[in-house]
């Protein structure tokens, strides 16, 4: 479903983000992206959302080469991709429900439809009852759940998570990863970049290891270290 074909990304300042990467992720997979700092994990994810354009090569999402996407088409690509970040990126002035509804508004759904879907997805991530709370009033783990809810409320094909547990204590980190697994089991492809050794080693999922912009290891039931 996602194919990187000979993709290189050189940033304008000359630093190498990706160096001839080839990678295929099929529908329904759960992939850990690991590697030292600066190895290109975030760059790889940013190419999928077309936050960056590859310098060379093709990035296929579905069957389209999104390197060739016109500006106008980008929003419609992004509605099919959910993204979760280490720092949650919630809007502090909106409530939990509003933060999630935010992602639906751009689709111009009816109020009723929005309310139904938000309730459904908050229930899924275990935040039913916290609709009216503000991000400030929530623990880090709860905030990350909100941001996951926002990412999946549009029923995306794929969920990208860039170090979603970097700001969380080990226990909370586990809860989040379990939630991602649940979402994966319901059919969404998940790609998660992480430094968390314990989680990667325990979960025994596909691991793609990167170093200096290249994929250096790809194991179906991998661990953090070689």
């Amino acid at each position, binding site marked *: 479903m996602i194919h990187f074909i000979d993709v290189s990304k050189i940033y304008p300042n000359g630093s190498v983000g990706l160096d001839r990467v080839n990678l295929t992720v099929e529908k329904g997979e759960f992939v850990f992206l690991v590697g030292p700092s600066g190895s290109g994990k975030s760059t790889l994810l940013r190419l999928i*959302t077309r936050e960056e354009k590859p310098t060379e090569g093709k990035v296929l999402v579905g069957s389209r080469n999104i390197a060739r996407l016109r*500006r*106008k088409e980008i*929003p*419609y*690509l*992004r*509605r099919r991709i959910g*993204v979760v970040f280490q720092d949650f*990126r919630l*809007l502090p002035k909106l409530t939990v429900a509003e933060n999630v509804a*935010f*992602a639906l*508004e*751009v*689709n*111009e759904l009816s109020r009723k439809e929005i309310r139904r879907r938000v309730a459904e997805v908050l229930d899924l991530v275990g935040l039913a009852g916290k609709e009216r709370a503000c991000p400030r009033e929530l623990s880090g783990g709860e905030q990350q759940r909100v941001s996951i809810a*926002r990412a999946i409320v*549009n029923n995306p094909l794929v969920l990208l998570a860039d170090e979603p547990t970097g700001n969380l204590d080990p226990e909370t980190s586990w809860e989040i990863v379990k939630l991602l697994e649940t979402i994966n089991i319901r059919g969404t492809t998940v790609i998660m970049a992480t430094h968390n050794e314990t989680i990667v080693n325990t979960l025994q999922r596909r691991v793609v290891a990167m170093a200096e912009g290249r994929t250096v290891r790809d194991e179906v039931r991998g661990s953090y270290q070689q």
Partner: protein
Amino acid sequence: MKIITLGKLAGEGMANLRARSGMGLTAITIITLAFVVLGLFLVLFFNLNSLGTSLAQKLQLRVFLTDGASIETVGESLRSLPGVEGLEFVSKAQALEELRKQLGERSELLDLVEENPLPHTYIVRVREAELIPGIAEEAKTIVGVEEVVYGRESLGKVLDFINTVSILSVVGMVIIFLATLFIVVNTIRLTVIARKEEIAIRKLVGATDAFIRAPFVFEGIFMGLASASLASLLADFTYRLVLERAPQAIPFLPILPREAVVPQVTLSLLGLGVLLGIVGSWVSVRKYLR
């Protein structure tokens, strides 16, 4: 985009303005004031234009006839000169009457005069100010014409001056428009920066450019319209203040009545306000969209 969404985004623009209300209000106040100055420049400009036109219409030559010349023949000759629009005949008697009026109290002086010393006169209306000197020269060559008199350079200089002030007032208007545009851009840019995070998230969840831009455009339009409306009222008020005093104070300068100026100014300001809002917000959001 659906109407309901558009309504929602307009509401958001309004909310933005209210949220940063300190700055929004300051901006509106200052744009209003700037628009008042702009409006007064417009008023000045309209007035100068009408003044110029009315002065130009008053352009006239006075042709004095020699005693005993044929009034009709000279009239024919004058009428046939190119650029002459019309003639008015003032007889010796009428001319004396005019002088009597001009002298006012001291006109008793004229009673001492035995014979009317004034000549028959033709007042010649001319199409354009530039033609006057040429026509005067030609008129002088007509048999029966004693002398030709006109405002010479002085009128031309007045027109020149009116022109200069007109141009300066247009320049003033452009300057003020640019300044207000800059204020709108910077005010909205501050809102944009304050909502940078939100814009980034919006983009991430798949909002189109139009969707992201709309609240800011509405914010700009609100700002422009609010300022323009207030400014129109203030400009009207100021103009009335001037109108009350000007006619007696400077009777030699005709001033346009309110009805001939205020509606145009109001419409112009409202139009400029909307334009300002749209251009200003467009410019300030653009950078954060690409």
